[in-house]
């Protein structure tokens, strides 16, 4: 069941100079969403902006009737949303798309996230914690600013390891420098982030024979499976909004899918 819900912005928390965590109240979405799913957000009235924007649900607190979205300002749409005043209402259509699946009991979950790619994993980590599962969370970013929500994952008791390209926090380098160590023993990989990172993680996972679920970000027109604008290539073009956004990484033909966002 999907609905177009009015969600009220109850809190805006700056995470970095250009990223915020927006916390909304909607009892339906907060309890209906599953980790990995997303919502199509109608932007506040802003001149000339038309289409809704897809955002992965970042966190879910059904008891407080709240969910959150991680918004990084990269253009006019994201800016309009990120600067919404507290108390504002926005239309959020969802929950949409596929979900992460829990790892098999013998597999340790390893989450790999680049920048805002961390967004879908807070709700998922809560679900893992509720199932008394530990996870390793590998966070990567250009600088320390881009390692969003590190404390939240640590507070959940997850084993968080960081890498920054400029060496300002954690290991120096891309997040892939952390993977080798994290892949010891039977693991299940989960990843989200820039496409080159995902391709690299998918290659490593394939070499090691590690199962790997990936959450993909695409421009979307409708989010409902109708416009066919968000396709991803598997053995044919499939819809990121409906068959995804969470895919089995092995099903994706990355060489046919390296398009810029």
């Amino acid at each position: 069941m999907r609905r177009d819900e009015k969600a009220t912005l109850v809190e805006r928390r700056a995470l970095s100079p250009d990223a915020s965590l927006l916390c909304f109240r909607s009892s339906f979405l907060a309890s209906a969403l599953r980790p990995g799913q997303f919502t199509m957000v109608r932007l506040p009235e802003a001149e000339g902006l038309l289409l809704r924007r897809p955002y992965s649900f970042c966190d879910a607190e059904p008891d407080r009737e709240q969910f959150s979205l991680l918004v990084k300002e990269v253009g006019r749409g994201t800016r309009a949303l990120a600067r919404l005043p507290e108390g504002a209402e926005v239309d959020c259509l969802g929950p949409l798309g596929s979900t992460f699946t829990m790892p098999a009991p013998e597999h340790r979950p390893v989450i790999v996230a680049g920048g805002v790619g961390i967004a879908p994993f807070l709700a998922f980590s809560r679900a893992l914690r509720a199932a008394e599962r530990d996870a390793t969370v590998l966070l990567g970013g250009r600088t320390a600013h881009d390692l969003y929500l590190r404390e939240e994952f640590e507070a959940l008791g997850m084993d968080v390891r960081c890498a920054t390209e400029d060496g300002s926090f954690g290991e120096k380098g891309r997040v892939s420098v952390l993977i080798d160590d994290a892949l010891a023993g039977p693991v299940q990989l989960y990843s989200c982030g820039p496409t080159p990172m995902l391709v690299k993680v998918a290659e490593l996972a394939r070499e090691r024979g590690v199962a790997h679920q990936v959450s993909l970000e695409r421009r979307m027109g409708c989010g409902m499976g109708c416009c066919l604008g968000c396709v991803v290539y598997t053995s044919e073009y499939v819809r990121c909004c409906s068959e995804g956004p969470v895919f089995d990484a092995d099903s994706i033909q990355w060489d046919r899918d390296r398009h810029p966002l």
Partner: protein
Amino acid sequence: MTKPDLSVTIAGIHFRTPLIAASGTFGYGTEYLDVVDYSAIGGIVVKGLYLEPREGCAPPRIWETPSGMLNAIGLQEVGIEKFVTEKMPRLCELDTSVLVNICGSSLEEYAELARILDDVDGVSGIEMNISCPNVHEGGILFGCDPNMAARVTEAVKKKTSLPVIPKLSPNVTDITAVAREVEAAGADALSVMNTIPAMAIDVETRRPRLKNIIGGLSGPAIRPIAVRLVYQTANAVQIPVIGIGGIASHEDALEFLLAGASAVQIGTMGFVDPSVWRKTLDGLEDYCRRHAVAAISELTGAVET
């Protein structure tokens, strides 16, 4: 005052409301079942079909422009066989008129699709896509030449007893020339208009925003152009015109009706607002009451110039 009659009849097809879902924006009809009030929808035009399935264009396929959306999907579709066996039975369960949009890379392909659909239960009519900007054979090529458009119409009419509705391209010097030719060839109504061929470029990378380079522009940005084309077309032909182009509210729908449309199609705004159908229909009913209009069909062409 009694409830205004919002139903319309076009080429013998009854539409319980004058709001029709535009081809390519409403999938195969059932994708929106849990979020859209289908009782506000008079008809559905399904995604364009060829004889065989098509893969469509490589991504990126969409880009937002001011009040508009640029797309080059390239008619990714399931092919007529799968449509008839898998999609059509589910469409039949909806209490709404179904128009099937057909495409072809040859005259023969259009004709064969029409022949097949003639026997399919639940199909109310055929919309002929002779205006897609994003396929490299057929599509818009058939729609830009009045003689070619007429030949396709004639070939399709010969193979079916269903009403045939060519969907015209705005990308022509004189839309009335195309409209008159397809009317003479037997078209039962016209859909005006398809998207406008358009382009956007990422100046940082110097690459086109769409992999296909050129796409079709839709949304409120194109509405005044569509209203003008409906006005011109409706004044040039006797057959009914269905207006399409960026309709987002009942005021927009009314502009098209007053310009000469008998019904309208909604496309891009259905992506943005699933409640656009109900809001638009309620707005039309309210307008009819305020203006003492007994039947919405009275408004067709009622612009005072």
